[in-house]
């Protein structure tokens, strides 16, 4: 089981769906520092691809490169068949890429429902229509209702987001992603700071979301990762040292060295 630096393609044992996002030879240089070095991976519909690595391995940078928040130094990113390497984050988001953050980026002063509605509105913005109150926008209110229900937040939809528990806020973070109807989800440590029960709920949600979406998950919680991932990519110092099924990764010598040695 050799670790291939340019591992790509579908994983054995997981449903091989259509490739929705593919990164090829992606690099990010900060002066002399190579934060991300020749990383390639693909995200397929119906599959959850986890990216793990020690601190400073470049996982956050990678997510930022894929989402469009950081400009790429070299390499290409394709989303739904289009080359989006030079696209800004909002443009990629409108094309079907959703992203959640490690630290909550919810709007604490708005209601849970409004959080989702405002996110959904991005796909039906109508900035010049000042006469219609935002609450009368059917597109965004219906999308918000769906997202709130999907994320299991229907009973707190009217609450001010800042008053939610930490676990609920993380769920809201996901719900806001879903409200925009993305096909690809980049999730940055959704389980951060969660207790056992909340983790179970989030994992159940992720499990439900997998069939319709291509999901990339950056996580530190190894147990959770091995439970939900269809494919795991391991990064060290900005490079991919292994990319394979969870079982293979568990037995991979280099990975063991990287984590334990």
């Amino acid at each position, binding site marked *: 089981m050799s670790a291939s630096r340019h591992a790509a393609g579908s994983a054995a044992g997981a449903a091989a769906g259509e490739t929705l996002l593919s990164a090829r030879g992606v690099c990010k240089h900060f002066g002399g520092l190579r934060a991300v070095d020749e990383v390639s991976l693909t995200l397929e519909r119906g599959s959850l691809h986890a990216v793990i690595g020690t601190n400073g391995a470049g996982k956050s940078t990678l997510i930022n490169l894929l989402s469009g928040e950081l400009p790429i130094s070299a390499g290409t990113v394709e989303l739904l068949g289009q080359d989006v390497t030079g696209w800004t984050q909002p443009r990629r988001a409108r094309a079907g890429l959703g992203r959640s953050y490690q630290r909550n*980026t919810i709007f604490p*002063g*708005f*209601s849970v429902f*409004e959080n989702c509605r405002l996110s959904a509105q991005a796909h039906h913005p109508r900035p010049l229509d000042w006469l219609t109150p935002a609450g009368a926008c059917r597109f965004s209110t219906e999308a918000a209702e769906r997202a709130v229900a999907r994320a299991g937040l229907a009973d707190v939809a009217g609450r001010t987001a800042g008053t939610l528990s930490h676990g609920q806020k993380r769920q809201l973070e996901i719900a806001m992603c879903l409200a925009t109807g993305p096909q690809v989800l980049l999730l940055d440590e959704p389980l951060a700071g969660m207790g056992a029960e909340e983790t179970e709920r989030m994992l159940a949600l992720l499990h439900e979301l997998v069939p319709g979406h291509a999901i990339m998950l950056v996580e530190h919680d190894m147990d959770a990762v091995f439970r939900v991932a269809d494919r795991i990519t391991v990064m060290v110092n900005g490079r991919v040292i292994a990319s394979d099924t969870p079982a293979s990764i568990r037995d991979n010598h280099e990975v063991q060295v990287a984590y334990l040695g």
Partner: protein
Amino acid sequence: MTAASIDPPAPVVEAGPRDFVSPSPFAPARLVPVILAFVAAALFPLVGDDYYTGLVSKIMIMAIFALSLELLVGQTGLICFGHAAFFGIGAYTVALTTPIDAPASLWLALPLSMGAAALYALPVGALSLRTKGVYFIMITLAFAQMAYFVFHDAPFSGGSDGTYMYFRPDPAIGGWQPFDIEDSRSFYNMVLAALVLVFGLLAVMLRSRYGRALAGIRANEQRMRAAGYPTYAYKLGVFVLSAALAGLAGFLYALKDGFVNPELLSWHESGTVLLMIILGGIGHLRGALLGAVAFTLLKELFQSEQLLGSYAQHWQLWLGLTIIAFVAFMPRGLIGVFERGAQQ
């Protein structure tokens, strides 16, 4: 570094799922005092003398100016310290384009003033919005200073002494004269109508999708970008709109006294209008109205020799100390005080 956003305190509300928990300017508790204020303003000339009517007129013009800045600072979270430039450009445009021998048409002069302000706002906003936080504050101040120097030094604008306007623009349409703009009562009513229109326009806009997007940008721009909003375009749009409204205020100011000078673009003017909105309360449209009233009255008080005697000479000192104390102890403004009082 502290963030440059200001969130109104979030009330905990158990409401139906479709309710937004955000202040709507049309909520009856909020709208009624505003309507009462407008009615009071409409009736004031019947009881006030010339001086005080002129003062109320000036307050209303400053209220339009303050509303334009509230849109930028309070609703979008963009702290602009150079808003006086747009005010002054609006004023100078009408003063410099009015012929010496006859009035121009109101229906050309007004759009021209607002357009000139918007035209300057476009490159200034395009460049300034590439920065955030403190950089943005400093850069907007610098660009305003640039405009100040243009009017201060250029030969066509009358230099530091300013320039006069001999006629107010004529509101005639074809042969019909809707009102006599040179008549002070008619002018007063025109200013009041402009204020009501601007307030109404902004109240409606803030309730719309664009307005909610601005609120989202203020709360967390990163999340808005992640959702798919081209936030730069939204910010530039509100910057230009805000400038055009400031230009409207400047236009009315020039008409009122028939005289403009470069100090209209000075940073003291920018500081004054910023002060008005924090005095009234950031994040609320009616805060801008309240702030314009409060500031103007405060300044009148400090400059009044009748009340303060010889201390009135040093009104800048009293004003400076009041500003410091007010911002230190009542950063949520007068509206914040009223709301806290209402909650108790």
